[in-house]
């Protein structure tokens, strides 16, 4: 495959929807007002495990403006079949986790619905619950595979013997807490039933996917469900699948025979819209005296709910990062009475690389080798476990370029010795990685009689800049100026497309857009450019192309550098500088790409220092379920931060030559910061986040 010449692609262009967003005209899901609208407010379980014995529906029906109160005894039946059991809302009296939906109230106004939901009395028969992820839990088991389809365990050579014989061994256990995606726009659905079927305005990362999920649930053919989602206020994985509120809104609208709007509140989001599983990870590295790895063992335990299994691929990046003849990775899961975890930006890579890259820093210190040099010495020639060649692998180039820009040379590795007044200062480095995926999608390209073009694909722009980049890609493929090309996305009535997930959006959608535009250009050439009054249209389906692609090991790489200052009186760590250098194929829009990479790094900074969903063992609830208590990075937390990239020519990937950049920015950040904190203070924090109380005793 060769990449096509592209004058717009590669240019730092403003977002095509920028003016809509800064003027408030961009319309998000909850901002739709079909006629005869009613408001739905869900009610959540206040026990973590048990049965609902009664719901006092009659009392709230007396309240002014209340239209309906729906629970499993009076709810319409759904047909979940083989689908996600989380979507079987109000179909059972069983409570599987605290915060699960047990009822929904529909009223004329938001105020009436909120009050009725608040006072609705639900009686339970509660059972004993278990919500604690802990090593040695008797319920730990080996899942059949880990997300999305990776082998659960891998092993090569004899890692135990190699560790026993190794000159230098690092054996450390790292833990990461539950973290919540928390996009700024809470999940919201407006559901409208009519003679044609069901229309939902939904905040989603994939309109086609939501349609294909909802249709069988309500016994409809896919063509009778339409999902409209032109603007989405962030997702980070939380909106990549239908969560229970989507089914609940559609169910409520069906029951009351009126359009219904439902917004998940920020507090509710901590139970019902997915989160990153907590992890406990044991990493063992064996090396010779020169730091060459002889063994790598990475064993992870995680949680899922009793409703469904989500097994995160925490140790998967360890399978391909560094060369070593003896290696093992394992994943074990325990099903607890907790909400169901799901995808959060870089599932697997984000927590897994925190552990591996922290361990590599510990090994560098144990071997008295610079941590960049240690990584360079352990570069593999091919993917160590599969034996496949890398389509491109520029980790070393990222490390070297970052070292040059950051001023790494001459760094004294001795921890805890750099003082500036009451501060201890240190620097750290870690590697980043994210796999390259491409999934089948379809698109149409249309030549309009006025000389313009319309390109249609059910892609999603959740803030990534997809609408802009697809316009650039289409304009170049059509050899037309950007302002003559209109790209329509965010609607399941458009040609079906892969979700905005797995950092695969641009590669998947862009391939379909290029192929549709090429097909249209062929038709146009055959007619000497003549466009009839009804226009000309061509379509593409990339299923065959994607299935036929060569099986390289394909990954984006990066190196992150952090400088931190730790207050010796309070233990407060602050990140003074953060630099990311990435190798991610061709960068299609440097302006939006830099924003996205910095955004990922900012979420990584937040993961390192702030984010932690605390499980209340007694009540089975995530205690700190709002922004006052679940802290995410604010403006003052993010100081000197930059993301740059090295040129990478990898024409085998897709027609654009691009790798995904949505997730790699968060990978490695927390390790770089934790490594810098160790360099500053001598304290190795192996359980995120790096709170004051974990440092204060070590620095006083």
């Amino acid at each position, binding site marked *: 495959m060769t990449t096509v010449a592209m004058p717009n692609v590669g240019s730092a262009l403003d977002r095509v929807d920028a003016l809509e967003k800064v003027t408030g005209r961009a319309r998000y899901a909850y901002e739709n007002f079909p006629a005869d609208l009613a408001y739905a407010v869900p009610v959540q379980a206040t026990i973590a495990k048990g049965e609902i014995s009664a719901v006092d529906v009659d009392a709230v029906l007396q309240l002014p403006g209340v239209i309906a109160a729906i629970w499993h005894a009076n709810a319409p039946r759904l047909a979940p079949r083989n689908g996600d059991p989380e979507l079987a809302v109000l179909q059972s009296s069983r409570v599987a986790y605290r915060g699960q939906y047990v009822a929904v109230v529909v009223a004329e106004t938001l*105020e009436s619905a909120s*009050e009725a939901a608040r006072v609705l009395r639900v009686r339970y028969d509660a059972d004993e619950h278990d919500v604690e992820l802990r090593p040695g839990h008797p319920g730990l088991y080996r899942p059949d595979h880990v997300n999305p389809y990776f082998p659960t365990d891998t092993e090569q050579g004899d890692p135990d013997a190699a560790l026993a014989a190794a000159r230098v061994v690092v054996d450390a256990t790292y833990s990461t807490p539950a973290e919540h995606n928390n996009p700024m726009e809470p999940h919201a659905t407006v559901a409208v039933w009519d003679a044609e079927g069901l229309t939902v305005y939904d905040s989603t990362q994939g309109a086609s996917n939501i349609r294909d999920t909802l249709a069988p649930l309500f016994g409809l053919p896919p063509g009778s469900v339409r999902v409209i989602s032109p603007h989405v206020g962030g997702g980070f994985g939380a909106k990549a699948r239908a969560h229970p509120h989507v089914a609940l809104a559609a169910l409520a609208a069906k029951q009351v025979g009126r359009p219904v709007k439902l917004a998940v509140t920020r507090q509710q989001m901590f139970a019902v819209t997915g989160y990153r599983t907590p992890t406990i990870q044991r990493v063992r590295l064996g090396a010779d005296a020169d730091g060459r790895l002889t063994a790598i063992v990475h064993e992870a335990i995680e949680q899922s709910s009793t409703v469904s299994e989500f097994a995160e691929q925490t140790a998967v990046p360890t399978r391909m990062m560094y060369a070593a003849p003896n290696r093992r990775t394992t994943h074990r899961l325990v099903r607890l009475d907790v909400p169901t975890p799901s995808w959060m930006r870089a599932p697997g890579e984000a927590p897994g690389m925190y552990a591996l890259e922290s361990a590599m820093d510990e090994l560098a210190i144990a071997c008295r080798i610079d941590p960049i040099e240690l990584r360079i010495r352990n570069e593999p020639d091919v993917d160590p476990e599969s034996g496949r060649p890398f389509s491109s692998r520029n980790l070393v180039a990222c490390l070297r370029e970052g070292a040059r820009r950051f001023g790494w040379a001459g760094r004294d590795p001795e921890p805890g010795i750099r003082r500036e007044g009451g501060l201890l200062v240190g620097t750290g480095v870690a590697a980043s990685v994210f796999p390259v995926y491409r999934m089948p999608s379809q698109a149409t390209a249309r030549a309009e009689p006025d000389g313009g073009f319309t390109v249609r694909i059910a892609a999603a722009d959740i803030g990534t800049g997809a609408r802009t980049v697809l316009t650039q890609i289409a304009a170049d493929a059509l050899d037309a100026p950007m302002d003559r090309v209109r790209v329509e996305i965010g609607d399941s009535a458009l040609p079906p497309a892969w979700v905005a997930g797995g950092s695969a959006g641009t590669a998947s959608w862009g391939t379909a857009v290029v192929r549709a535009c090429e097909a249209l250009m062929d038709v146009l050439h055959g007619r000497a450019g003549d466009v009839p009054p009804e226009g000309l249209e061509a379509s593409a389906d990339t299923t065959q192309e994607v299935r036929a692609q060569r099986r390289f090991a394909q990954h984006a790489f990066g190196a992150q550098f952090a400088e931190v200052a730790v207050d010796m009186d309070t233990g407060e760590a602050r990140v003074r500088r953060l630099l990311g250098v990435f190798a991610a194929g061709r960068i299609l829009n440097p302006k939006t790409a830099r924003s996205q990479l910095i955004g990922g790094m900012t979420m990584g900074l937040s993961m390192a220092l702030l984010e932690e969903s605390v499980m209340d063992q007694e009540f089975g609830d995530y205690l700190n379920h709002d922004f006052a208590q679940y802290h995410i990075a604010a*403006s003052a937390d993010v100081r000197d931060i930059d993301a740059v990239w090295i040129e990478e020519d990898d024409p085998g990937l897709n027609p654009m030559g691009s790798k995904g950049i949505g997730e790699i920015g968060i990978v490695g950040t927390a390790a770089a910061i934790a490594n810098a904190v160790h360099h500053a203070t001598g304290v190795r924090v192996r359980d995120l986040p790096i709170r004051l109380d974990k440092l204060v005793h070590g620095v006083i």
Partner: protein
Amino acid sequence: MRGPVRSEDNNGPGFPAPVTADIRLSVNGDEHPVTVDTRETLLDTLREHLGLTGAKKGCDHGQCGACTVLVDGRRAKACLTLTVTVDDREITTVEGLARDGVPHPLQAAFVEQDAFQCGYCTPGQLCSAVGMLAEFAAGWPSSVTLGAVSPGAVAPGVEGRPPLCDDEIRERMSGNLCRCGAYPNIVAAIRQVAP
């Protein structure tokens, strides 16, 4: 303003009926006669009844800043403001920042600096930035202003007042969360416009 009216119909045992009030709300220079539930927040009135969906609901608890609007020129969280309390105020939302179809300089700077990704926090960031620049011009200190030990420590017009540096912008904009992580670009956009 007509006095609060208690609805007589259909109130159940133990639950008071909603109380409504007829008020005139002045938003972006337009007067809106509106009947509001006294439990209703300004944010819900704007979004659900006036069709002004620019102000966003990110948390409904005053913790994220997405709902920030200007009330008599000062930053206010619309989700913590009961509508009945602002019937005598002038409210400005993101829809009211442009003049005669020309974007406010901050709106143009946000586009140029790519100071947003998903756009959901953006209306609040913009209103907050407008209010913040006015606060700074009026001499209000922040917690990073040198010598600021109490409100009013840096009086308006005092010579040698420190410039609006990036630390000041970050500090003063930290009530507006952005999960996409557009902070450095937001700071750059505000710096570009700040006098």
